[in-house]
């Protein structure tokens, strides 16, 4: 049983590590996406006001979209888990 607890602990750690890595990767992808969409001129090494505003909008839009998609995705996963459990019972 001590072993089971230890496995549980390692799984939790692993999940946390993955979540950190995942959110940092998502951060980088968001920068790349919005930079690619919003920045076109290289006459200066600073973002101009228009570019900055575009980046802010792009971020907000993507993050809100992702929130919504996360909700829906979790609902689908829930449903599938329930169906699997039901199928198990009917065996």
């Amino acid at each position, binding site marked *: 049983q001590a072993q089971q607890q230890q496995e549980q602990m390692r*799984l939790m750690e692993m999940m946390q590590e*993955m979540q950190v890595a995942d959110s940092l990767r*998502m951060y980088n992808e968001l920068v790349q996406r919005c930079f690619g969409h919003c920045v076109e001129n290289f006459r200066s090494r600073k973002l101009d006001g228009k570019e900055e505003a575009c980046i802010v*909008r792009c971020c907000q839009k*993507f993050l*809100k*979209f*992702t929130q919504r998609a996360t909700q829906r995705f979790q609902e689908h996963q829930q449903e599938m888990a329930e169906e699997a459990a039901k199928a198990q019972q009917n065996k």
Partner: protein
Amino acid sequence: MNMPQGQGNLDAMKAEMIFVADLFNKMSEMCFKKCVPRFHDGDLNTGEPVVCADRCVGKYVEATNKVGEVMQQLQQGQAPQ
């Protein structure tokens, strides 16, 4: 989606977690491209993209199951249809 259920096997659970995270990331990237082709204003709360997000997630999950079936059929040497 067609993943083995975890049986206390840590490696399999890790593989499954990575798979689901990768699936989710590819899905949200793809659905964003399909549903928000242009970035005009920052607010998604009203209007089309939210509805599109819901439907896109539904279709993507279905497509994932479909592709899984085709892969299994090909591995078993059966031509689908």
